[in-house]
């Protein structure tokens, strides 16, 4: 056989099957988020640290967004998926305005989020999502989602890296779990009541400073967004940077 070039046989040193080393499309960017609903307001808070492994990528990345129509959204976990989900939501919201010319209610926003998440059921967004807003009766609302779209309306929810540290604290301090009415001598549960905005903000700060102390992926700064029927406002507080 006539060959025009001298064949180097290295070209045939190819494996019959690709090497079993798959690209991993996910990573964990740490961070934690927390949503609490009050009587006529809701807060959604998150730390501003973004990390990968033991490296802190940024100390100042907000992950709680005012997506419009008085809805706060945060998707915590794999940052790229979180951003993609928020953008997909904002895009859908824009089209909702074009098509219906009205505001999107918080319960519809929750259903939309479920559709977006479940739409990627077999290649999920690797995020724990929380929505916060004010419902049609003017009451504070928090909705939380698992990565594939199961959701529930709740009084409060922590998500992300330090969720397991914060959640029992919230049960105790927001829903008064395991607390009794002091005058009943342990026969009656402490009655539920709405917390004031100041109480909620203080709880959020305590929850985050505790989580920062014990979780390496939580820290730097705390972003608290408060939403009422009149709009959203943001405050920042510093957390430990170590």
């Amino acid at each position, binding site marked *: 056989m006539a060959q025009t070039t001298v064949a180097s*046989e290295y070209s045939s*040193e190819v494996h*019959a099957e690709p090497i079993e080393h798959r690209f991993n*499309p*996910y990573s964990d960017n740490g961070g934690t988020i927390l949503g609490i609903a009050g009587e006529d307001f809701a807060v959604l808070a998150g730390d501003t640290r973004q990390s990968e492994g033991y490296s802190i*990528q940024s100390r*100042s990345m907000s992950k709680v967004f005012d997506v419009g129509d008085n809805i706060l959204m945060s998707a915590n976990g*794999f940052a790229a998926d979180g951003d*993609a989900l928020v953008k997909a939501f904002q895009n859908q919201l824009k089209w909702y305005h074009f098509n219906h010319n009205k505001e999107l209610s918080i319960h519809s926003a929750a259903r939309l989020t479920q559709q977006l998440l479940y739409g990627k059921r077999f290649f999920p967004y690797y995020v724990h999502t929380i929505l916060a807003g004010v419902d049609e009766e003017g009451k504070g609302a928090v909705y939380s989602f698992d990565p594939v779209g199961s959701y529930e309306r709740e009084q409060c929810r922590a998500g992300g890296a330090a969720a397991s540290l914060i959640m029992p604290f919230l049960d105790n301090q927001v829903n008064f779990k395991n607390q009794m009415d002091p005058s009943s001598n342990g026969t009656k549960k402490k009655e539920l009541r709405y917390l004031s905005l100041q109480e909620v903000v203080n709880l959020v700060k305590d929850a985050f400073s505790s989580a920062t102390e014990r979780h390496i992926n939580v820290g730097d700064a705390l972003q608290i967004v408060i939403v009422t029927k009149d709009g959203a406002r943001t405050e920042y507080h510093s957390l430990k940077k170590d």
Partner: protein
Amino acid sequence: MNHDPFSWGRPSDETYGSYNNAIANAGNVSAFPKMNTQQPIITGTSVIAIKCKDGIIMAADNLGSYGSLARFDDIERLVEVGVNTVVGMSGDISDLQQVQRMLEQLEIDQSYEEETSALRAEHVHEYLSRVFYNRRSKMNPLWNACVVAGLSDDKPILRYVDLLGVTYESACVATGFGGHLAIPLLRQKCDFEAEYADISLDEAEKLVKECMKVLYYRDARALDKYSLCRIDNNAEKKVTITKDVRCEDMKWEFAQHIKGYGTQVV
């Protein structure tokens, strides 16, 4: 005798006939499945950058490594886009060059739309993050980590995007080994976003040069020849890229005492 070293020690075709691919389901080369980038081939190491009062300093060395082989020493990894944006890229060089062509095309398409270039750093970053995220979602990533630096409304913009589509913004950004070796040094000057206003361009340039030196000392895939980008809001030409900058004033006396691995025996 077959003089190709690849054939040495193998059964010769004259004696045994050609290799039967059917044995043990070895398959044949032509039936090879479609392959996506599963690992980088020629790679570039760290890109480092820091924001300062009037702009940004960014640097990336000129080495293209083939595994541990220092294969190319003249790779340019800082790419100018539009009038006041520079993208620094590490990771796979062929993917880098494809991204470079995509950015050129973006610039051309943009110029058809508008007379004056409206393409700014945040747009370039948004574009890149969408491209990278889409490719990762197709399980066919562009194997790079990029730093986008530029000016927007006279304010410095410094953002990152990588092969997973993960993005962030920070006062100091570094890819690869730079994240471990350079970031701690850069953060000594500028730990929190707001602090960048206290650093002058010259101070930042000195710091980045120091970091490139540290990287050359300790990153085995780094080179002492690099490109340095200076984005200065007060200058006539806002972006200047200086090529073939060398690491200077290095001390290598310690090297002769290193024993126990490599070629020197204890």
